[in-house]
């Protein structure tokens, strides 16, 4: 899959634009709310990387599964988790998509098979392998898409998971969002081999690298990758080369990268690239963009209002959801079970 992608229809082009702008405006608001103390803890913004989630998720069906990282607001929004419940989660309110227990890094939604929000780098890959194993065992033609960053490539779980998924031909799309930094460590300083395709090839995993700033290219590559996986051909490794415009988290003074580098990448802003493309193809009128911006602003405003109004969970519920409410005892009644264990001696 190389070369320029064909122009989208106007409808689809605007859809992609709308999704990227939704993420951008939502996160800009999050940054502001972090500043005002409404959102606490860690806040990892996706700004600059929107084309990856938006492009990739076009290739998925509603019954496919997603495992994401702590930088997952974009995936969650595109997947269809309401912005209201995502924002309430950021606030830690009971109306949050994880009832406030997870926060920004742990967005979950069983209804859309969105399995988090994993904040251990590399920790989500084995989960994706297991979700895919369950599908394979049950004969389901579903795909599990697993997002992770370039930092995860240094973790043992990356290597174990690619190997196991390839060995068992599991339907996993491994999607590496290579934003060139593992927190503050440049990829040149954490990888001996910078060509990540070679790592996939080393495990006999099919792979492709794509310009992660070009949403149309990401979508095309993801569709190709998902078709491979859904056809039962085994896992696929898709690398999206992208860049994070904002700091790693709110605590990051960005001492590790020159401002010029950031500015250079901002010239390839995925939203601007798509806008240029749509204008070039005469698929965008000023009114379209105004409408999209107005819709995004309204969605963000509603999300904030919902989060503000959402109640705090009562502290009496502190111990909720540590274990299931009422674990079932085994087949035996307690009395019978006690008799049974008392019957044997070691």
């Amino acid at each position, binding site marked *: 899959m190389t070369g320029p992608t064909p122009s989208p229809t106007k409808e689809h082009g605007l859809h992609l634009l709308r999704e990227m702008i939704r993420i951008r405006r939502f996160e800009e608001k999050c940054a502001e709310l972090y500043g005002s103390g409404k959102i606490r803890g860690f806040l990892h913004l996706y700004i600059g990387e929107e084309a990856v989630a938006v492009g990739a998720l076009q290739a998925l069906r509603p019954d496919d599964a997603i495992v994401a990282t702590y930088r997952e607001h974009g995936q969650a929004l595109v997947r269809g988790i309401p912005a209201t419940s995502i924002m309430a989660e950021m606030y830690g309110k009971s109306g949050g998509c994880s009832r406030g227990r997870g926060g920004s890094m742990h967005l979950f939604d069983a209804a859309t098979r969105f399995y988090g929000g994993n904040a251990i780098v590399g920790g989500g890959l084995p989960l994706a392998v297991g979700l895919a194993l369950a599908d394979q065992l049950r004969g389901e033609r579903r795909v599990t898409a697993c997002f992770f960053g370039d930092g995860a490539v240094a973790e043992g779980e990356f290597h174990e998971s690619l190997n196991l998924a390839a060995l068992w031909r599991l339907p996993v799309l491994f999607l590496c969002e290579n934003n060139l930094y593992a927190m503050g460590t440049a990829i040149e300083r954490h990888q001996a081999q910078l060509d990540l395709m070679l790592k996939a090839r080393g495990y006999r995993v099919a792979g492709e690298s794509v310009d992660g700033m070009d949403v149309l290219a990401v979508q095309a590559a993801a569709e190709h990758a998902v078709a491979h996986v859904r056809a039962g051909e085994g896992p696929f490794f898709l690398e999206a080369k992208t860049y994070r415009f904002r700091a790693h988290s709110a605590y990051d003074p960005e001492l590790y990268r020159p401002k010029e580098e950031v500015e250079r990448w901002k010239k390839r802003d995925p939203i601007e690239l798509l806008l240029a493309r749509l204008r070039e193809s005469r698929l965008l009128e000023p009114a379209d963009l105004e409408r999209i911006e107005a819709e995004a602003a309204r969605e963000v405003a509603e999300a904030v209002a919902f989060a503000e109004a959402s109640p705090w969970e009562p502290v009496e519920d502190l111990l909720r959801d540590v274990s299931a409410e009422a674990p079932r005892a085994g087949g035996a009644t*307690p009395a019978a079970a006690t008799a*049974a264990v008392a019957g044997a001696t070691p």
Partner: protein
Amino acid sequence: MKTTYRDAIRAALREALQKDPRVFLMGEDVGRYGGTYAVSRGLLEEFGPERIRDTPLSESTFVGAGIGAAMAGMRPIVEVMTVNFSLLCLDQIVNNAATLRHMSGGQVSVPLVVRMATGAGRQVAAQHSHSWEGWYAHVPGLKVVAPATLADARGMLWSALQDPDPVLVFEHATLYGLEGELPDDAGAVDIARAAVRRPGRDVSLVTYGGTLGKTLQAAEALAKEGIEAEVLDLRVLRPLDTAAILASVAKTRRAVIVDEGWRSGSLSAEVSARIMEGAFYDLDAPVARVCSAEVPIPYPRHLEEAALPQPAAIAEAARNVVRAHG
């Protein structure tokens, strides 16, 4: 019928695989090799490679895959060869299995069973002999069980599979060859309560897993001296059956905790603390503990034996608390 601990676990695995199509077994050498401790021998032939799955040496990923499959509604049984190797998948167990229900606000359930061998006594030195189950018993979101009898080896697995949360099953490596009688219709047992394995009035000996047999031997020796020890098998290390511990201590007024884990920051410390919190005024003597010496388990037999709780030391500790009548 006459059976062994190993065969009892195999019978439990077979029953689970027969009864529930969602169950599969996965781990290192569980298939063609027949299981490191021969527990799963014959199961590959009976149930096939889809359900008896040999894995690469990738503890973190195959345990994580078990978690993922459990989230998706399967009932995986993952065998980690020994608890010593489970440190390679500690992240998956502690950061994923134990937290996903909570972090997801109750949306995700992880009905996973992880079986591991634990403990010393076979001269396999410091990287194959430790007892880390107390660490796991520290973690909210996990259930930790330790079958010490044939009935529990046979019956705990099914109950663990019915539990909607992750259950870790610790099989002491010296128990696999344990022989005894088990009723033909032996089946599921509870995984909630401790069990009195020997009633007594003079001192409570609280233990679990691999040290139950040694503790019962100590109780036999004490009985010959006129000291009637009650032996309480914890069975479930998390959540602890505190009521059973306190009830025994309320009766005997003395307690010795026997744990193959080390003493510092340990499960034995937790049991002792609960007795102090809940039965302080029932006690006639300070709580005593018999634990492993604070040394990586050494290879030579005489040093390994010296490092581990032994019947003589257990009996001596019991005599001391009985003599220390307040």
